[in-house]
């Protein structure tokens, strides 16, 4: 904003304006950049706000091409038919047609690929210990393990409502609360204090557990996906989490990712083996994600 432009606006009167006088002389023209190869379109607009200050508005939008709907000629013609019957003298506020406010999903009888996950989780006791969050995925409604969360349970509608919910551990091995001293209905025990919790993590920091045995992988090729990393790191031991950083704009891989292992030894072996390994014509760099205290 310059003083010059401000003076102009303060002098400006609507009444004095000529018919063909345009306001554009006061403002830089509207600028449209793109859409670029990622489909990002930038629109820069200038306007005066109520106080007479010049405001620059930059709007960045993603442009996507929708599949064009095909209507045949006769269907197009039918579009222009006049309404008849009750619809002809229908008032506009009648709202006969509404779009559902509720998102209706096609509910699958079982989530795809669940059987495999279940057997894997059950077979490896080590992975159960280390997985933490994953094993706790026990549905409180149907007591099915590792299949879905309680909120996603297909039987949820038929379940007893929550107010008569009994605070009962779903199954013996998955529950950690029942064995801990002083835990009943009355007292809340934080997860870190419960029996079976990872004491080494020294409680407090929840994030730390996520960083445990985390391996950073860099110099990945653009089209590496999490499944590829899983395939690559799986042979070294149980993997709890695989993450590949994805660029939000381009939805391409940003070239790095993280892999969390259940055990430190597996992670170390993976680093030893895969650091400098050629993958997709690129040489991987694999290292500990956080500087180790030791």
């Amino acid at each position, binding site marked *: 904003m310059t003083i010059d432009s401000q003076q102009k606006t303060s002098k400006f009167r609507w009444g004095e304006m000529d018919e063909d006088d345009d306001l554009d002389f006061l403002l830089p023209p509207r600028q449209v950049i793109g859409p670029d190869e990622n489909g990002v379109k930038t629109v820069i607009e200038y306007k005066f706000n109520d106080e007479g200050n010049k405001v620059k508005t930059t709007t960045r939008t993603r442009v996507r091409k929708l599949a064009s*709907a095909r*209507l*045949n000629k*006769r*269907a197009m013609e*039918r*579009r222009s*038919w006049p*309404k*008849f*019957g*009750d*619809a*002809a003298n*229908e008032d506009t506020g009648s709202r*006969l*047609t*509404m*779009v*559902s*406010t*509720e*998102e*209706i*999903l*096609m*509910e*699958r*009888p079982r989530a*795809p690929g669940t059987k495999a996950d279940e057997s894997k989780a059950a077979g490896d006791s080590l992975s159960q210990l280390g997985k933490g969050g994953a094993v706790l995925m026990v549905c409180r409604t149907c007591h099915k393990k590792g299949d879905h969360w309680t909120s996603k349970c297909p039987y949820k*509608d*038929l379940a007893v409502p929550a107010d008569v919910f009994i605070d009962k551990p779903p199954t013996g091995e998955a529950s950690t609360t029942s064995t801990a001293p002083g835990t009943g209905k009355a007292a809340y025990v934080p997860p870190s204090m419960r029996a079976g919790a990872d004491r080494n993590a020294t409680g407090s920091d929840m994030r730390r557990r996520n960083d445990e045995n985390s391996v950073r992988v860099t110099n990945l090729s653009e089209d590496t996906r999490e499944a590829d990393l899983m395939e690559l790191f799986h042979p070294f031991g149980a993997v709890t989490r695989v993450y590949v950083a994805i660029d939000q704009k381009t939805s391409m891989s940003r070239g790095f990712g993280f892999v969390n292992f259940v055990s430190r030894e597996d992670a170390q072996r993976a680093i030893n083996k895969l650091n400098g390994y050629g993958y997709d014509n690129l040489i991987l760099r694999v290292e500990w994600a956080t500087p180790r205290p030791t």
Partner: protein
Amino acid sequence: MRPILMKGHERPLTFLRYNRDGDLLFSCAKDHTPTLWYADNGERHGTYRGHNGAVWSCDVSRDSSRLITGSADQTAKIWEVKTGRQLFSFKFGSPARSVDFSVGDKLAVITTDPFMERTSAIHVKRIAEDPEDQIDDSVLILQNPDGKKRINRAVWGPLNETIVSGGEDAVIRVWDTETGKLIKESNEEEGHKKTITSLCKAADDSHFITGSLDKTAKLWDMRTLTLIKTYTTGVPVNAVAMSPLLNHVVLGGGQDASAVTTTDHRAGKFEAKFYDKILQEEIGGVKGHFGPINALAFNPDGKSFSSGGEDGYVRLHHFDSDYFNIKI
């Protein structure tokens, strides 16, 4: 997906039908006015006023110019689709239940219910090109062996050579349209155990599916009437539809309308259930209705379907893209 809710009827829906191009949707309900909707956005386009009773079914000609409706007021009426003008009214002595145009739209099959001392029958009417020349006479009348039982649906077979019917006696019958003789009927062990509520042809007329109150739907070969598949579901089936695009069938139903008020609506299972046509395995369910589903129809492009319920709503569902890559 976010379904489009269409509340144009005050009474339970009975039938839904798309035109061939898939841009128009006709709905019939127990109130007396069949309604025309645009199939893409669900906008109401018109109503066909003139019936004086529940409208049980309808059919639209291939060029989307004529609509035929069958009603409990003992008439079947032909309408001009564009203007809603009534062109002709066939009068029967008993309620008209099911209507179906033949291939070529020159004939229509209309079933009538048993009423007073009249027995259930299947009438074949010739449809005149010019509504002025239309006459009320039946070309052919087929009598159900058990005249006390209602015929719920009768449709034309391939090349108009046969008529396939199903009804309260749970037997599927194939009739010769030339001679009026009964050619085939389903036997007891393969056939349905209870009332056949609905019958839907495949797009190519090679096979058809029937839904029944015995909680199953069955897929049949149209020519030989051999049982191909059986889909078992937990609730009585009121409506069936077949995807013209994928190997999916949809079953709609729910507990009997009279029992709805006695239970929680969640226990009623008022959902449209999708089954794999070949593996007979359930793919998924689409919920939303507050009462049993009475009518189902697939858009001829296979990318949307609509369901009509006892609750008086038509719900128009446009599938999400992930529907098309469902793997079992």
